[in-house]
């Protein structure tokens, strides 16, 4: 045993080993691309996807082989897995980039001040013109209403779970059902509000009914993220406050919540971003409308329900009946781009608030 150990783990003679020069790998990549171009031109191979896969595989194999022969086994394995990890990152980022790029490309054409400031009232869906003003109002108001209910309730529920519940059965049950609620499909939340708010309590379809469904979807997100943030507040701060003779409720209000504020705000924003794009419950509970309705409580009787951006997109794609170049399809892409920008603005705003509210020092 001892002899094999000694032979297999020899001390290196010098610390510096043979390394591939830094220019070699880019050069290798360029060479493979050129060779493959030639290969694809001459032989029957064709197609962009085939080309990309071919180049990547060839690069992976050749890089490993060259590295193995020059630098040895450990470096070759290192390079292979590095390439693998970078490749996986690229694969994961690809859909995100494509979605963004495609939406911008498709939506930018229709984007204008007019598009953002007029509704679809008296616009022929088959003709160009019209806008998304009514849908922006609906989305913002519904999201705001849902947030106004979900944020305080969610933060207070998290305070209960972390500061008071501990390991009590009730707190554990709440925690469990919060987890379950996180996975509730949005249409189920919509159906629940439909059955509870509209059928059982007899209210009408309205923007507010939609906001209620959004609130149900947002609540578990806020509770879970706030809970994690409160758990991060060091116990020493609570103890320092208790030791000054500060009651528990005041400690939570003045020490624990301000310390966790940045994270709580971020969690609420994530929740808002999650609900802004929800479509199914809004179709069920609000419906669509081409005119401006600033009152989210206006019911069916008012003949004018609130439009929202997701339902607007749905409506326009329906009107486009499969024609990707129709004005309706372009409006749908424009609305999609607006929705993404809206969510990005919101995220940016939350970052800003979090920066101002962040722990000093």
């Amino acid at each position: 045993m001892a002899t094999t150990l000694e032979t297999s783990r020899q001390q290196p003679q010098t610390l510096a080993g043979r390394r591939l020069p830094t220019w070699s790998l880019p050069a290798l990549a360029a060479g493979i691309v050129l060779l493959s171009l030639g290969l694809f031109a001459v032989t029957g191979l064709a197609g962009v996807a085939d080309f990309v896969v071919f180049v990547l595989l060839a690069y992976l194999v050749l890089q490993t082989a060259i590295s193995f022969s020059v630098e040895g086994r450990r470096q070759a394995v290192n390079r292979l897995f590095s390439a693998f990890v970078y490749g996986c990152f690229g694969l994961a980022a690809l859909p995100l980039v494509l979605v963004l790029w495609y939406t911008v490309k498709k939506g930018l054409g229709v984007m204008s001040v007019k598009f953002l400031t007029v509704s679809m009232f008296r616009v022929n869906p088959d003709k160009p013109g019209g806008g998304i003003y009514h849908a922006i109002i609906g989305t913002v108001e519904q999201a705001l209403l849902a947030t106004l209910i979900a944020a305080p309730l969610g933060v207070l529920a998290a305070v209960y779970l972390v500061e008071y519940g501990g390991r009590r059965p009730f707190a554990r049950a709440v925690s469990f059902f919060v987890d379950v609620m996180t996975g509730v499909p949005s249409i189920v939340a919509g159906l629940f509000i439909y059955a509870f708010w509209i059928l059982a309590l007899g209210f009408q379809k309205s923007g507010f009914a939609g906001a209620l469904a959004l609130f149900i979807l947002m609540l578990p997100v806020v509770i879970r993220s706030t809970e994690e943030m409160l758990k991060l507040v060091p116990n020493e701060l609570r103890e320092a406050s208790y030791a000054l003779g500060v009651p528990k409720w005041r400690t939570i209000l003045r020490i624990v919540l301000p310390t966790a504020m940045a994270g709580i705000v971020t969690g609420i924003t994530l929740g808002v971003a999650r609900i802004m794009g929800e479509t199914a419950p809004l179709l069920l509970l609000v419906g669509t409308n081409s005119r401006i309705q600033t009152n989210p409580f206006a019911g069916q009787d008012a003949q004018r329900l609130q439009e929202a951006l997701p339902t607007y997109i749905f409506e326009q794609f329906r009107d486009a009946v499969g024609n990707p170049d129709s004005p309706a399809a372009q409006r749908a892409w424009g609305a999609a781009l607006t929705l993404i920008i809206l969510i990005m603005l919101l995220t940016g705003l939350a970052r800003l608030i979090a920066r101002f509210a962040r722990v000093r020092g």
Partner: protein
Amino acid sequence: MAKRIDVSGLNCYYGKFLAVADVSVEIEPRTVTAFIGPSGCGKSTVLRTLNRMHEVIPGARVEGKVMLDGEDIYGSAVDPVNVRRTIGMVFQRPNPFPTMSIYDNVAAGLRLSGVRGRGQLDEVVEKSLRGANLWNEVKDRLKKPGAGLSGGQQQRLCIARAIAVEPQVLLMDEPCSALDPISTLAIEDLIGKLKERYTIVIVTHNMQQAARVSDRTAFFNLPAFGEPGQLVEYDDTTKIFSNPGNPKTEEYITGRFG
């Protein structure tokens, strides 16, 4: 102002585990009492029972009596919040409130228990910072965050915060263990000064420190692993360090174990 503490037959539990058994000590007003002993022997636990901070830990409870000037702080009608307003505490690691400025940190105890009035707060903040030997270092940056100070300054800030609410007893749980010798000296000087007004109990791992600052010393020990810690000897500091009554104490202070 300063009050005496009489502890008798104190048992401290964490859940079912008896951590410290049968402690009895009498702490005179305007003295410094040091708790020494090896790690895990329960000296910090005993200290935390003196202002009902022990029970903040889930499952922790106490048996026995802790009398503050004849009043049992574990009496059924006693509000722990009032106990902690009377008996302040400084922790091992400096823990200023990170969201607050230096001024707000010192004023926190008063503000959070409902005192308003700018003039009164200004006065208390200056007095407390002077009391903690920190005023001259921070008087020009009271609005800066407390977490931006050095470790030693932070600990003195925490002492200022603790004395701002005018407690009658000050408990210190290894207040210098995270500090350098110069900051330690500053805090030891401060303890000598605070002694004129407060009853002070200090837990320390540093026996020279115990010898320097305290009038009375309590030696705690762990008889064996898994058994509860116990109070071995409690006497004048000079006697403990020159002529201890118990051989275990002598072994510990001469560095033969622990």
